[in-house]
């Protein structure tokens, strides 16, 4: 009974955050609702006994990735999204289609997994068991992910840098800013 109560508590917070992400118009509100969803999902992982997954959910997802999102929103000074013709069409077509898909998925899940049940703290999620798997059975995929992260870092640096900053060294100031590159920082900074 305690398991069900805690599951419903975290699940209600989770669903409320997900709905709030859809309802809010400003991206920073959506980002904060996503943080709420991720934190309550960490609670669900703890209920299942997956302590390591809960920890990296909070550290990597709610910490690192969401900081990246919020940093980008603040850097680009993103405002409220405007309602357009495309969004009305998307709402009219998207909501019924997604509702049909959701009912199908829920019906299938409820019909075929009626007997299976999960106890509280079912998994031995301590880092020792995870580490044995990660560094023994899954060693090659683990090393490949490190290469993937390295390539992603280099790609992010190349993509997000200014087009003239790649070719020129950093300290050599250009005589005038190129016309086609808009300033990101807004009116506070004077143009060169």
């Amino acid at each position, binding site marked *: 009974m305690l*398991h069900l109560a805690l599951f419903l508590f975290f699940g209600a917070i989770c669903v409320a955050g997900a709905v709030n992400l859809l309802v809010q118009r400003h991206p920073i509100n*959506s980002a904060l609702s996503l943080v709420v969803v991720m934190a309550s999902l960490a609670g669900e992982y703890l209920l299942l006994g*997956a302590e390591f997954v809960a920890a990296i959910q909070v550290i990597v997802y709610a910490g690192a990735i969401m900081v990246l999102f919020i940093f*980008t929103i603040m850097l680009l000074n993103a405002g409220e999204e405007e309602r357009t013709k495309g*969004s009305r069409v998307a709402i009219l077509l998207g909501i019924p289609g*997604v509702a049909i898909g959701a009912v199908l998925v829920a019906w299938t899940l409820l019909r075929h997994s009626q007997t299976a049940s999960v106890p509280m703290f079912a*998994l031995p999620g301590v880092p020792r068991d995870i580490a044995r798997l990660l560094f023994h059975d*899954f060693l090659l995929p683990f090393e490949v992910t490190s290469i993937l992260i390295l390539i992603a870092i280099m790609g*992010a640096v190349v993509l997000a840098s200014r087009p003239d900053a790649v070719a020129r060294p950093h300290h050599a100031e250009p005589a005038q800013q190129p016309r086609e590159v808009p300033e990101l920082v807004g009116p506070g900074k004077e143009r060169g």
Partner: protein
Amino acid sequence: MIPLSCYLVLSGILFVSGVLGFLIKRNIITIFMSIELMLNGVNLSFVAFAAHWHMLGNVHALSGQIFVFFVMVVAAAEAAVGLAIIIAVYRTRETLNVDQVNLLKL
């Protein structure tokens, strides 16, 4: 003891919210966050199935948590590259609305 289907339905609700946000949102950053919501829903079903099979005595059931780890790594890489692309798009077009970003060329 609660049914496994409770976790699966919660995971399905999260995934469907992500799909809906992907469809109805016009801001490119919010669309990106909807993708993260979908990944979170899938992660929950991975961990729930891992718990279920571990309880039934499957020795490989802990691998579900490893897959969650890999999904998180891919999500982190995707967020870094995707947000860099969003910054590049904003530099050239000065908009975040996906209705106005419909050409590959400038």
